[in-house]
């Protein structure tokens, strides 16, 4: 058994663990700059996590095992997805275990348990958040799958490693396709909805009437809350990684090329910095949607994804 791929796998998971809070810190920093405020340290998310980890856990009286179990499960599943998605290098040992469809499924498990935990304690807000999350998920998931199918039509595979390999082998022309334009747009809309950013959800506020993801975390405290927060930061990081792997795969190291890894890391940092700026630009220029408009928003995402699939057959 070769040991090297497993070391690389470990490195990638570490990048995910360390990079996700750093990316959130970067986003906050640009947002502060844009709004003319003085920004906190880039490492502020780490301090917040550290603070939460050092605090005691307060459990509600009627919390069941689901409530205590969920943070670990969500965190674990997110880490597992991080081991599958080619963030830095393709053909890692874990990448053959699951393709994109399975990744969508894994995200669904994490969401299912989060929703259960939201309802577990029995507060009104938790239940409301769960129902909202499920409403958005039921619309976002089919759109996500169609986007994935459209992209995999080109590379004849649903495995992310395979997709990256095919696209990088075909050069710059490979991503310059009509079906990719439509899929990219649909993917952006879905990613915004899934990771709970503006205009679907606002991660910065705790206003009861509008928040979606935060409502389910209201009852959590201490290390449970830290794990949940960390997992949602990693989810954002992972969604961007998936989009990056599919729509701009340049720079991801091929299998067995150790020398390409520093370059891949460099590209990774550059891409994330640029994506952060774009994300903040969008979030600052858009207003949050009314909740009942999200159905329309995600319906449009689904139809654009379908259009992308059609354009593959019509134009390519």
């Amino acid at each position: 058994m070769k040991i090297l791929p497993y070391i690389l796998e470990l490195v990638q998971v570490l990048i995910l663990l360390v990079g996700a809070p750093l990316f959130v810190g970067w986003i906050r920093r640009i947002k502060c700059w844009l709004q003319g405020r003085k920004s906190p340290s880039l490492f502020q998310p780490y301090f917040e996590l550290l603070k939460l980890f050092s605090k005691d856990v307060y459990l509600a009286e009627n919390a069941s095992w689901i409530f205590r179990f969920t943070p670990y499960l969500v965190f674990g599943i997110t880490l597992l997805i991080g081991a599958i998605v080619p963030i830095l290098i393709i053909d890692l040992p874990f990448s053959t275990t699951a393709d994109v469809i399975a990744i969508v499924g894994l995200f669904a498990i994490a969401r299912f348990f989060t929703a259960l935990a939201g309802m577990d304690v029995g507060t009104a807000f938790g239940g409301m958040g769960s129902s909202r999350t499920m409403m958005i998920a039921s619309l976002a998931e089919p759109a996500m799958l169609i986007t994935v199918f459209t992209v995999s039509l080109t590379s004849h595979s649903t495995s992310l490693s395979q997709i990256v390999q095919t696209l990088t082998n075909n050069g710059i022309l490979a991503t310059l396709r009509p079906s990719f334009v439509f899929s990219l747009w649909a993917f952006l809309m879905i990613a915004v909805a899934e990771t709970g950013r503006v205009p679907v959800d606002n991660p910065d506020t705790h206003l009861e009437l509008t928040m979606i993801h935060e409502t389910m975390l209201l009852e959590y405290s201490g290390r449970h809350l830290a794990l949940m927060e960390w997992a949602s930061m990693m989810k954002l990081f992972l969604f961007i990684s998936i989009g990056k792997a599919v729509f701009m795969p340049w720079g991801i190291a091929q299998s067995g090329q150790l020398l390409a890894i520093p370059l891949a890391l460099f590209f990774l940092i550059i891409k994330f910095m640029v994506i952060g700026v774009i994300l903040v630009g969008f979030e600052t220029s858009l207003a949050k949607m009314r909740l009942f408009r999200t159905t329309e928003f995600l319906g449009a995402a689904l139809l654009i994804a379908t259009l992308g699939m059609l354009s593959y057959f019509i134009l390519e």
Partner: protein
Amino acid sequence: MDIQITEQIIIMLAALVLLTAFAMLVQRKIYGLISLFMWQGIFLALTTAFVGYIAHRYHLYISAVLTLLLKVILLPYILRMLIIKLKISREVESVVNVTSTMLIGIALVIFSYQLTAPIRQNSAFVAQSIIAIALATVMIGLLMMITRRNAVTQIIGFLAMENGLFFAAISATYGMPLVVELGVAIDILIAAFVFGIFSLHINTTFDSLDVDKMAQLKEDY
């Protein structure tokens, strides 16, 4: 430039034209609508230039410049002046059922693909499938005119339809003769003026741009 890359770029631009057409179908804000129309004009002009390059038809460069002047600068300017005059620049139109409108739009894309099959077989053009996109753009413009009620939005729908026609001409026969094209350009310009005057009159008579209000013109027996 490589022929293959140019072809790829043309197909990409065609897809972008279709994308803007769909975006216009669901855009509520009138300012956003005009900027989408502008983008469609930019993509159209770029396509024209690239088709001219790939087919060595240099008069297409002239029509690309013409498109750029007319559809990216002049018409959006006129429309902006119009909505400022009408004081509806901040207005948000109520669009009924975005999802079903978009579904109809997708059905129209498939329909035009089927409809243009014989043309595509006989066409010598490298990227024949663009004709289907052009026809779809025409139909989506028409759909927009049917589903919207605001008079200015309907004007934009009409102009988007004309964009589709122009696109079809480029993709099927490398554009129309320059005389015809000039004629159409002036026609569109005049049409925009006439529409503008009409909407001003509609607005002063009915105090609204909702064309449904015109049902009041009917005499009751």
